[in-house]
Structure formats: structure tokens, C-alpha cells
């Protein structure tokens, strides 16, 4: 294999094309997810404030949070662990294929995290830096960046439910954090409580999801395991 002609970034970018985006929108219910995200956005306390200047600031704040979520979710849908059949037919041994899959997963996760970090920097510029909100949003984004989509048929109902629960908790805690970011809510106690609760719920959830991802990638190394079963 002429490895110099291939790169993880190139493989990642390959999937960002109209054909695959259309397919994802049809199959993975991306518009439905985006709808839910927007609904969470609308429910955000900060955006409802009336003052025009504050409203623009809150709108930009919401955008800096919601846009990365939408982009990363689309990316997660576009980059499933299992690959196209041709990938299993190309000259590569099993270990190399598995290594590429791990690297591709990590590469996608790091790209997602970069997108989220850009959003967090915009948040800090707009609203000032507050370490607890930053920590909460960063941890949330970190977990979400390294998530892969669960498939009920492949992963079982339990994991699919776990995945939906994790995404819901992620969206809810992110949304609840926004009023603290914009300054609409000041209570230190509430923020501490939110931070502790979010970590207490999300950490074990993410640990379970990581185990699922590990199994998925391990299975995806073999065509039979990834596609047939």
C-alpha cells in the first residue's frame, strides 16, 4: 500500500459530500436531531431576554453552542465505524485495517473537539471566561466528540437506549449551562450542583459507550462481523 497517498484527514473529508449528506439525512434522521437541538435552543433561558444588545449576544452564544453540535452530529452520522465493502477488499491485513479504524475514530473525535473548542473560544470572547461553565461544556463536548452512533440492530436495544439517554443528558446539561454562560443566571450553588450532577451521570454513561465503541471497532475489522452479523 502506498501509504503516502492516504491520510486520515483525506479519508475524513471524503465523507463530506452531498451524496453522503443526503443519505444520512434520509436514513439517520439528522433533520429530526437538528429539530431537537433547535428546540433545546429555544428553551434556553438566555435567549428569551428582551434587550436588543443582550439578545444579539445571547443569539451568538446560542449559535456558538448549537452550530458545533449540529456539525459534529452530522459528522458522527457521516463517519460510522463500519466501512464500505471495498475497504475490506483492498490490500491490507487485518491489523492494519483495525489500526486505521482506530486512528480514523480518534482523528474524527479530535476534529469534533476542535470544532467545539472554536465554539467555546467564541463563548469566552462574547461572555468572558468562567472556569466552571467552561469545564462543564468542555467535558460535555469531549464526551460527545468521541461518540459513535448506536445501531439498534447491531448493538442491541440496551445500548441504543443508553446512547439516546446519553445524547439527551448531553443536550440538557449543555442547555442548562447556557444561562450561566450568558450571565442570565448567577447562582454559584446551582452551577456547582449542575456540574457535579452532569459529571456523575455522564461519566459512567460515557464509560459504557466507550466499551460499545471498542467492541464496534474490533468487530468492524472483519467484514463478516461488521456487515453480515
Amino acid at each position, binding site marked *: *500500500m502506498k501509504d503516502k497517498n492516504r491520510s486520515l484527514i483525506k479519508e475524513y473529508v471524503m465523507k463530506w459530500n452531498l451524496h453522503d449528506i443526503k443519505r444520512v439525512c434520509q436514513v439517520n434522521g439528522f433533520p429530526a436531531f437538528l429539530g431537537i437541538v433547535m428546540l433545546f435552543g429555544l428553551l434556553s433561558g438566555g435567549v428569551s431576554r428582551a434587550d436588543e444588545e443582550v439578545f444579539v449576544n445571547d443569539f451568538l452564544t446560542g449559535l456558538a453552542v448549537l452550530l458545533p453540535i449540529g456539525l459534529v452530529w452530522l459528522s458522527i452520522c457521516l463517519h460510522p465505524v463500519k466501512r464500505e465493502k*471495498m475497504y475490506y477488499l483492498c490490500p*491490507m491485513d487485518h491489523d492494519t485495517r483495525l489500526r486505521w479504524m482506530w486512528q480514523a475514530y480518534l482523528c474524527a473525535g479530535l476534529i469534533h473537539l476542535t470544532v467545539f473548542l472554536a465554539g467555546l473560544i467564541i463563548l469566552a470572547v462574547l461572555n468572558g471566561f468562567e472556569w466552571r461553565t467552561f469545564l462543564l461544556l468542555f467535558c460535555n463536548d469531549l464526551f460527545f466528540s468521541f461518540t459513535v452512533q448506536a445501531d439498534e440492530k447491531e448493538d442491541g436495544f440496551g445500548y441504543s437506549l443508553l446512547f439516546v439517554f446519553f445524547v439527551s443528558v448531553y443536550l440538557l446539561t449543555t442547555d442548562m449551562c447556557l444561562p450561566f454562560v450568558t450571565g442570565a443566571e448567577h447562582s454559584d450553588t446551582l452551577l456547582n450542583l449542575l456540574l457535579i450532577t452532569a459529571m456523575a451521570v455522564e461519566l459512567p454513561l460515557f464509560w459504557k459507550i466507550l466499551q460499545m465503541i471498542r467492541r464496534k471497532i474490533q468487530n468492524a475489522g472483519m467484514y463478516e462481523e461488521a456487515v453480515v452479523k
Partner: protein
Amino acid sequence: MLELDHVSKRLGSFQLRNITIQIPTGYLCGLAGENGAGKTSLLYMLLGLYRPDSGTVRIDGKIYEENEKEIRQQTGIVLAEDLLHPAFSLLQNGRYYGSFYNGYEEACFVEKLKQYHLDPREKFGHLSKGQKLKCQFAFALACHPAYLFLDEPVANFDPEFKKQFFADLCAFIGDGERTAVLSTHETEDLDRLADYLIFMKEGEAVIASDMEKFRDSYRIVSGESYKIRLLRPDVIVKLEEREFGARALVRHSRLLSYDKSLLVAYPTIADFMYFMS
């Protein structure tokens, strides 16, 4: 040489059973059988996409578990489904997937595409089914493999291209050092060109031999029913009685003699398929 040694594989309710085949190098091997007989499953075993539950698949003496990369460097593939990236142009596809193959030659790919009246700048997803298969065939040839595996591409080709396809296939095996396995329902072409035949029925390789041996082993006998029945019952594979006379597939041997009034002919693969189904 392609070898399957007592290979069995369960795939849900379907099972490939105890398949032993040796396809010598330089042969065009036809893979025939009705729908669901196991042709594609057998091809997937040869391609290493399915791993056997028992038995061994060897390509040039190598097994996928130990030499997957080396084996795949030697194989070209044309499957009935879309293998290349739909959003990429044919040339981009060639460059991307070709980067995996040591033998890939872009000039050869472009030349083949032009020969098949395909524009290298066209997106793969915009092609018709037949054009996609032509492109995959061109790509497979451009990788200069030693083994070519083709899963039912012929049905999607126009008659004009069929000629070109078989000419290229014959040229591919022409030097006697390369082998092609072609799964198809178009058995006339196999009758004409194949050197080796694998006939699958319900997950078993009923026939796995060179065409000469296949033709020597069976006869189609037509004539009056009672005269056919005079043959030993164990040689009659299947007898089909009609209003005026009968027709039978018979296991032939040199010791077998036929009544002079019976019409005895070599079977075609289509005849064989007809009687075996």
C-alpha cells in the same frame, strides 16, 4: 491455484457444505447455479470476506488469516453492487483505491475507461448500473491482478459490450498465468469460453471440474421413454417425460451404450441447470 479444501460455512439458514475445489492457474472458471444456490457466498469465501467455519481457502498456497495483504494485492474484483465511491469521479476513485494496490496503473485505467466509452471525470454515482460495472472491470484490470473475481456482471452489459468484455477476459487469462472466476446466469458464454465449471446447488458444489470432464461425464438423451428407461436406473440423473417421448440427463461412461434410436448429445450448462433444478 485457487483451492477450497472441505470448506463449510453456515450463513443463517443457508449453508455451504463441504466444498472441495481446485481451480488451476490460467483457467476461466464459470460459476453457475440457480438463485440462492451459493454462488456469491462461494465467491465471498474466495475473496476472504467470509471465513470458513471449517476447511481452508488457499490462494497460491496462502491463506487469508496469514497473508491477507499479499493475497489481496493479487485479486481484482467486480461485484454486482457499487464498490467505488459515488461522489468521486472515476479518476478520483482510481487514484484513491488504486493507492492500495502495488500494481495499479492510472494510464491503463484511463485507457480502459475510454475504450469502454466512459468519461474519467464523470462521478461514479452518476453512472448507470452497466457503466458502473464497466468502470469496476476497468479498475480491476488496471490493478494487474493474478486473479479476477466477477459476480454476475454480464447480465447488465449491452450485447456490444459483452463482446468486448469477453475479449478482455480472454486476453486477461491469455498468458496462462492468470485466472478468472466468473459467476453468471448467462451460461451460453460459459459453454463457449469457460475452462472450468463449478455448478452450485443448495450450498453444494455438484460439479467442480474442467469443462472437458463435465462434458464427458453427462449426456442429454432424447427419444422414447421406455428406451431411456432401459438404461441402468443409477445413471439416469433426471428423466422428463413428455406426451411424445422423453428427455433425460444421464451420467455417462464409456461402458454405457445407448439404443440407436435415441438421440444422444453433450449437455450444455443450461441443460444441466434445467435438469438439476
